[in-house]
């Protein structure tokens, strides 16, 4: 069972109260962008065994979107943070670096 703490209402919500929203920190490439950028934005996703950054929505709760950093292998949740950011905050990265030395996720290490 996956327990993720919603950063907005502070509830340690069980997985069934949440809805996964796929990979986090995607940068949108729209009209006028190159085919490669658009393909990457639309189709290319990370599928790591280990540290992953995801979007989640507290759908049966406060209804807010947020970000979570977790391990896809052990289901350990390193932390959750606001949706209003384009990269993981430093304290979350420090936690992950301490627990998973040498991890790499896209260009974050």
């Amino acid at each position, binding site marked *: 069972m996956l327990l993720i703490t919603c950063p*907005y*209402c*502070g*509830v340690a*919500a*069980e997985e*069934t*109260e949440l809805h996964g929203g796929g990979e986090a920190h995607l940068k949108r490439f729209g009209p006028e962008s190159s085919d490669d950028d658009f393909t990457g934005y639309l189709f290319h996703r990370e599928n790591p065994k280990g540290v992953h950054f995801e979007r989640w929505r507290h759908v*049966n*709760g*406060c*209804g*807010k979107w947020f970000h979570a950093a977790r391990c896809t292998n052990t289901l350990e949740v390193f932390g959750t943070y606001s949706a209003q950011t384009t990269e993981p905050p430093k304290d979350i990265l420090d936690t992950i670096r301490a627990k998973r030395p040498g991890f790499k996720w896209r260009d974050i290490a």
Partner: protein
Amino acid sequence: MSDVALALDGASFEGLVKIEELAGQGMVTLRGNLTDKAIVKAVKDVFGVSLPGTRETAFEGDTGALWMSPDEALLLCAYDAAQAKADDLAAKLAGSHALVVNVSDARAVFQLKGSMLREVIAKLAPVDMSPDVFKPGAVRRTRMAQVAAAFWMDDASTARVVCFRSVAEYMFNLLSTAADDSSAVNHFTR
């Protein structure tokens, strides 16, 4: 308005807890920054309650406020007063970035009475109902089985559950099944 048409005509069930559909509860949804002084003051003026903190409830007589999310509160009052209060609050917040809607007829409210209510709720919602964690004065917006719901405890043996009116019958059947006399687990009463 004379008679309020209840979703289940005031259905009730007696088992581990007494379940009763409550007659018309006035409900007004407020969306906006709940820490904004103008919004806090307007709610205090119209509903007589201070907006509650995160996951808390505030009651003053028959009016109350429930925390729904960082930018949403559910304001409770008498059914007949809901529209007037909503209009009044909307007028007071005309200049603020806020939205006020009377949603009284969109919901059904059930009251659970009895010492086993923690167990009945715990069977249906992914919420820690232990007396040390969920106390009167707290509100939780979650799901019960397959439908969205919110509940709070008025005192140690009374809780109210709110759900969408369209799923009122499902909710009543669900609560009744969970409160069946022969289904006691006695987890929270030991």
